[in-house]
């Protein structure tokens, strides 16, 4: 078959090497329009470098075996990265000091003050919400000289988000994991990932204990099937009950979200979640400026602080705008279905009504809005 002929929309699935480029998306478009091509302003190769660096860094020249067992290298590269980030940080401080005027400093201090003592986002009026969003955008501008767009869009009427995952289709490519990290500005140093893909042995059922969620070999592997987990956005989420300050709650469209600025970092919600849906920023999260996704939402992918909990939000910045979450869009096999549970004509409803669906740990009464099905 001809690769450059583009007679059909090719998904770049047939390469036997590591994936050629993260810009291959499943949307069927060769350029533009589709959102996984957002970063086309720098060329493919640069982008590839950046993406590979971000995910595996110095280890990319080694195979999986080396990466696992050569810890010294890991530590050294981690140290290198740390020094580099310190240098960058020092540089940022000096530049910001020399460039900013006294007026800017004053404004910065004012913003910091107001941000430190603002209320819980859940209880804010719409005006207050847009107020804090404006402050955050301005603060980012003052600090980095770059602009971001941040939304405070509320849940829409007649929307309840739901998700279905086809375990017969998932091949374990982990494109979703990659897309998620890039979309949601997750900390690169700790390699935080919301999604886990579990490689299970055929014939052993859903045996998570023996499953491997960090494989690195050609997939799909013989005799295995793959199952993805992430936050299930339970309808009766145990995590929000336990939060002492209501920093996490369920929105009207079913998304379970966190106000990163209200979270006190007690991690009670992490202990309460039966699905490993929550992540904690053990140190200050860092995303290289050029990899930053600037399309943000207050409750979604805006930059987090150290010492707060974060989680999958079904990409609130995308889903509330009508788009699919990044993982759904990135999946090359169509194993992920997302939609509005209240729309009787939606595909997610069709899946629920026509396929044999099940959920994980249903006996806990958490009512996840994340279903699994098979062909």
């Amino acid at each position, binding site marked *: 078959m001809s690769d450059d002929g583009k007679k059909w929309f090719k998904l770049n699935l047939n390469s036997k090497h590591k994936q050629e480029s993260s810009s291959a998306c499943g949307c069927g478009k060769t350029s533009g329009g589709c959102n996984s091509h957002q970063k086309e302003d720098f060329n493919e190769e640069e982008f590839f470098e950046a993406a590979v660096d971000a995910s595996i860094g110095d280890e990319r020249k080694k195979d999986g075996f080396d990466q696992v067992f050569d810890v010294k290298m890991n530590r050294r590269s981690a140290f290198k990265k740390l020094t580099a980030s310190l240098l960058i940080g020092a540089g940022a401080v000096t530049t910001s000091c020399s460039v900013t005027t006294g007026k800017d400093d004053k404004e910065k201090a004012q913003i910091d003050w107001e941000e430190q003592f603002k209320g819980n986002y859940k209880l804010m009026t719409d005006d207050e919400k847009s107020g804090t969003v404006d402050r955050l955008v301005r603060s980012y501008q003052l600090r980095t000289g770059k602009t971001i767009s941040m939304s405070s869009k509320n849940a829409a009427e007649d929307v309840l988000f739901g998700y279905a995952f086809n375990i017969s289709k998932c091949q374990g490519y982990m494109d979703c994991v990659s897309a998620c990290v890039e979309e949601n500005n997750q900390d690169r140093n700790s390699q935080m990932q919301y999604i886990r893909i579990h490689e299970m042995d055929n014939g052993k059922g859903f045996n998570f204990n023996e499953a491997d969620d960090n494989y690195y070999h050609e997939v799909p592997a013989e005799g295995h099937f793959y199952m993805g987990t992430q936050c299930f956005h339970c309808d009766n989420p145990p995590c929000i009950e336990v939060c002492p300050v209501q920093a996490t709650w369920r929105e009207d469209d079913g998304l379970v979200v966190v106000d990163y600025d209200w979270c006190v970092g007690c991690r009670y919600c992490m*202990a309460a979640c*039966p*699905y490993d849906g929550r992540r904690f920023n053990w140190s200050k999260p860092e995303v290289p400026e050029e990899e930053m996704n600037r399309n943000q939402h207050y409750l979604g992918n805006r930059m987090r602080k150290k010492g707060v909990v974060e989680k999958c939000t079904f990409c609130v910045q995308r889903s509330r705008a009508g788009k699919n979450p990044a993982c759904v869009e990135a999946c090359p096999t169509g194993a992920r279905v997302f939609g509005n549970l209240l729309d009787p004509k939606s595909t997610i409803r069709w899946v629920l009504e026509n396929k044999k669906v099940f959920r994980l740990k249903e006996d806990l*009464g958490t009512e996840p809005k994340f279903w699994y099905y098979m062909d």
Partner: protein
Amino acid sequence: MRRLNVFASLVRDSLDIITHGTKKYHLWMAFLTFIMLIGMYCYSIQLEEGLSVTGMTDRVSWGLYISNFTFLVGVAAAAVMLVMPTYVLKDIDFKQAVLIGEGLAVAALIMCLAFVVADMGGPSVLWHMLPGIGVFNFPNSMLTWDVIALNGYLFINISIPFYILFRHYQGKESKKSVYLPGALISVFWAVGIHLVTAFLYQGLQARAFWNNALLGPRFLASAFAAGPALIILVLAIIRTFTEFKIENKVLKKLALVVTIAAQINLIMLVSELFKEFYAPTHHSESAYYLFFGLDGKTALLPWIWTAISMNVIATVILTFHKLRNNLKVLYFACGLLFVAIWIEKGFGLIVPGFIPGPYGKIAEYTPTGIEVGVTLGIWAMGALIFTVLARTAIEIETGKMRYKKKER
């Protein structure tokens, strides 16, 4: 106005007392201060770098801090073992010991709060929890119950001894009608704080190891063993180093309390072990990890088996009257029991709750140096607070410190 004067004088006198003492006393205080400074240094690193300097991960998201918190709640609750007979049942034996017990409770509670704060990711926004200016998720979150319970208990345990000491300081007898209601409340409250703390874990359907009905009662039993055991040790120290008279009778009565609690604790342990291992299910994996290791991961094995053997040895020693009545043996047994329960109710309870994770993944937890430093610092702070409180109380109770009595 007069009261304020008395209070100011009390503070002045007690400051005077606690800054003077024998060489040993000064050494002890210097040692504690030194450890506290180390702890503060470690905590400053933690504040700067974030909790990544601890051994905790997304898998094991609570560690040494919360373990110590849990254990110390038990120690604080145990003060009730002294309060109840003294104030309510008019058992004169405990009267002298009770102030020490409550002082211990105060120190333990302050340590509890310090451990919780040390564990927070954002201590600078803790005001979010204050009702009124913040959002207090009551009654849904058990953590808010715990905040109320702990602070309430702290208040009770500060106010009752303070009232009594304040009266004695002025050379008056304390009025029963004033402190008795408080004492009665504190009896229920003590049981409350420990149950509520147990419910903190017990209410999580996600963690099968904790989600078991015996957790609360076992908390109580172990607390009523470890707490008085510590009190016995502390009284023994006070007896040797100060003129505060504590009769053998008091220690022996306390020993009886420790013995019974330790026995009940052992019975519950057996019941727990039976449930986990006679017909093990998927939910027994945490227990397997704790007692036998899972998938070659055995970090907790030496700890828990040390704890259990110490626990059994101590309980056996205490069970025999002859051994228990020998004070040296009693102290030894109490020390064993205290350490055993510290391991079991701290490390042995919190860490296995997270292992294996929700999807069976095992990431073991080992505290880092910084974590240990902060922990030791908080313990040193607790010891310092207790020393200060105990010295003041002892001086008042022995009549050395009195209002308008210039010579000491």
